[in-house]
């Protein structure tokens, strides 16, 4: 396999980094990163404290974690792999080929991330389980029973549908900043599309794929909704099952989950080949587009089929709930009503909190990403691992840990206020910003930075005029992930939102809990619509398609 030559000479032509960027800045970044580490270690400190406080024992609390541990690992790895394949493939097709209707796919592809998992999984079950819509659709064709949606395969499929955007977005961002020179050359050398994908595209997007897959893994191991609804016993499920009546077991399993998260984060750092990662190159040329030739329409069919299941399927089910509720609205008695009242304010709140969280998280973690990616700092790597691991714990654990520490800190006066809600979201979703930002920093051509320094540009100006524009696709991808995740987040929102600050996910949960599907469907459609508009504004519009 011929691979693209990687330029890891961190430009010896110029001064060393420390002096070129300034010792003060370096120390500033290091100090900030230590502060971040202190914040991000909180959930793990809480789990350890509880473990010591409750007194966990191997026989009673750890021995029974082996089966869920095995399941968790198996599910996490499988979903990460399949999401990597789907996410990378879709991103390449959208950014680098002559696939028809690319703009449509570009908006649609990230959206399955917008479904709250409890409603999304419900909709998929309503669509594909026994007695569901698909079965009714297929029964005239003589197909009367579909394979069971429960167990490992169901959980694996549903999670892949909902998480591949974690890979898609970073890879799409990476591809859109990548010069097409190599692909051009490869094409001139007569490489076929698939060959070119393997030898040119894959090596250049490897860090982004790896980063995204790690996020998928962490999401999967910390998700409660899907494993619970589709009956697959993972560590997170057993934490929930034991949380009230057997706290030592819940805490012990939380500890196991945390260790698993750290081990995989460590492994990913090695696999992604941090030391050899490719640096970006300056190039103003228009992105290269691979002609799909006779594969153009079959490929389109596959893409449409995938999004048909992952996105359109759940949307159709939700739409059906709304229409059914609307038609029966005269009959609906009691307090359940289908109405648009009380949707706009939560929608506004959702939008506000999502945007603020995304901005705060991306900018707060940027210095850390720089420290880790540019300086290969060990301190940075440790801090970054802590940030990442926060995504591997269930939202409920993050929320309780947050409550535990805040009430023992000077911040107690701000308990259950909006700023602390944002902080708690960042604690959980920081991983999405940091890992993707690292990729953005790392792939930024360093020569440019140094040239601009040599030419005497001030630090802030350099950041604003050189660094930020170059990193922006990556930062937007990371920010976009945080945004979509925050907008649908539930457990942290429920426990920590200021009373009266309703969000769409709270409304959807309240309706779905009472089987008010019309209402839940309507609110979910608003949430997905809002997410679609934001995806277009922040991400799609900025990518040349």
């Amino acid at each position, binding site marked *: 396999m011929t691979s693209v030559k990687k330029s890891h000479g961190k430009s010896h032509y110029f001064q060393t980094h420390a002096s070129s960027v300034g010792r003060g800045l370096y120390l500033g970044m290091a100090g900030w990163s230590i502060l971040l580490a202190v914040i991000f270690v909180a959930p793990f400190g809480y789990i350890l404290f509880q473990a010591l406080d409750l007194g966990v024992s191997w026989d009673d609390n750890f021995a029974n974690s082996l089966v869920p541990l095995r399941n968790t690992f198996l599910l996490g790895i499988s979903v990460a792999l399949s999401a990597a394949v789907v996410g990378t493939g879709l991103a390449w097709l959208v950014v680098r080929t002559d696939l028809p209707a690319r703009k449509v796919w570009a908006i649609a592809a990230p959206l399955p991330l917008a479904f709250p998992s409890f409603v999304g999984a419900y909709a998929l*079950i*309503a669509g594909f*389980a*026994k*007695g569901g819509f698909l079965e009714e659709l297929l029964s005239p064709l003589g197909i009367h029973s579909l394979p069971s949606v429960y167990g490992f395969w169901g959980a694996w499929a549903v999670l892949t549908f909902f998480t591949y955007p974690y890979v898609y977005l970073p890879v799409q961002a990476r591809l859109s900043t990548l010069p097409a020179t190599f692909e051009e050359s490869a094409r001139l050398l007569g490489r076929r599309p698939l060959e070119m994908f393997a030898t040119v595209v894959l090596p250049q997007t490897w860090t982004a794929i790896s980063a995204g897959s790690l996020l998928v893994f962490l999401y999967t191991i910390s998700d409660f909704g899907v494993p*619970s*609804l589709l*009956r697959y*016993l993972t560590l997170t499920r057993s934490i929930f099952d034991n*949380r*009230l*009546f*057997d706290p030592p077991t819940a805490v012990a399993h939380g500890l196991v989950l945390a260790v698993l998260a750290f081990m995989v984060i460590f492994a990913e750092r090695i696999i992604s080949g941090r030391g050899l990662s490719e640096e970006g190159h300056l190039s103003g040329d228009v992105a290269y587009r691979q002609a799909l030739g006779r594969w153009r329409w079959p490929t389109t069919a596959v893409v449409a089929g995938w999004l048909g299941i992952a996105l359109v399927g759940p949307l159709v089910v939700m739409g059906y*709930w709304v229409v*059914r*509720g609307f038609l*029966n609205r005269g*009959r*609906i*008695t*009691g*307090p*359940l009503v289908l109405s648009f009242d009380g949707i706009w304010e939560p929608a506004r709140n959702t939008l506000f909190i999502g945007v*603020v969280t995304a*901005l705060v998280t991306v*900018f707060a973690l940027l210095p850390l990403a720089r420290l880790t990616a540019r300086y290969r700092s060990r301190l940075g790597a440790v801090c970054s691992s802590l940030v990442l691991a926060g995504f591997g714990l269930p939202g*409920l654990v993050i929320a*309780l840990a947050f*409550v*535990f520490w805040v*009430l023992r800190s000077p911040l107690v*006066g*701000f*308990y*259950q*206020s*909006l*700023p602390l809600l*944002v902080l708690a979201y960042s604690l959980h979703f920081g991983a999405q910003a940091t890992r993707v930002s690292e990729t953005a920093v790392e792939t930024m051509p360093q020569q440019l930075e140094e040239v601009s320094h040599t030419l005497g540009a001030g630090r*802030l*100006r350099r*950041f*604003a*005029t050189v660094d*930020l*524009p170059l990193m*922006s696709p990556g930062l937007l991808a990371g920010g976009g992930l945080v945004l979509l995740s925050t907008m649908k987040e539930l*457990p942290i929102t*429920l*426990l920590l939102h200021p*009373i009266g600050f309703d969000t769409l996910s*709270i409304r959807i949960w*309240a*309706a779905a*809990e*009472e*089987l*008010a*599907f*019309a209402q839940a469907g309507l609110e979910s459609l608003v949430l997905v619509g809002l997410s679609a508009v934001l995806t277009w504004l922040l991400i799609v519009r900025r990518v040349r398609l």
Partner: protein
Amino acid sequence: MNKLKLLLALAIPLVAFAFLASCGDDNDSSSQDGTAGSITLYSGRNENLIGPIIQQFEDATGIKVNVRYGNSADLALLIDTEGSNTPADVFISQSPGAIGFLNGEGHLRPLSASVLNLLPEDSRPADGTWVGFTGRQRVLVYNPEIVDVSDLPSSVFDLTDPSYSGRVGIAPENSSFQDFVTAMRINQGDEVAEQWLKGMASNNSPNYPKNSAIVDAVIRGEVDMGLVNHYYLLRVLDEEPNASGVNHYFAPDDIGSLVIATGAVVLNQSDAPATAEQLISFLLSSEGQAYFGSALKEYPLGNAAPALPDDLPPLPELTTAALNWQELGGGLLRTVELIEDSGIKQ
């Protein structure tokens, strides 16, 4: 991109934050006599269900109730983690189990006799720490297109018969199911409960995470029947009148007909216990009780309960309101262990 834009991008969240931080908390001052103009309620019961009656309370008394909704178990954990700092005055739980947990951790404040007296004598818990103000009955929901009426049992104990193998959906991690097993232990002993669980396990009863998922699966025809609380089906029929699901009630004296109380407690840390009790008393007043019966089709459990609506069978004899956890060996943890050890979980 110019510098101005960047500065704006950085400044807007900061300004927003400063603004939000300044309007952080609006703690109300409470007076010495335990009353306050506003109280905080943590409710494990959904807003759709409890919101209207809270509104009525606010309108009637002028007292503002700040409500945080959530899952009963999660809110109980939140209260426990908040400890002495909890803003909550009152906690409403779907499940007596979450109340038992808070009781065990010492977070409950015994209620005054004036509140307890709103319950029938045999429904008052021995330590007087909580009241069950409304109840949902355990039923067997079934799909009439699949299940023949003559197949329906009169006792929940019949379900361990091999003829029900693989046909009865259960939710072993759900609090309603756990409460039901706890009641079975209290009522008939651990041995009986253990045997029943093992029977259901060897019948390979399909597992679901919660009641609503069972009702949904029964209607789709994925499973023939399932053990749930009565009102989920009633909600579904509201939206989908043709849904193929029917509630089957076990005999009134069968443990399968248990009524699971929605409970309310006043927390130890409340600085307005008198106002908190005022809210609980309102839930047990004739106004509150009428609401739960007619609007929600639940079983109002207070003395002031009106006659039941026509479409509900009479209140069965067993309610969790009367069950005293404290007398139970091994407590609720033992219930969870019995469920775990029976092999019923999939």
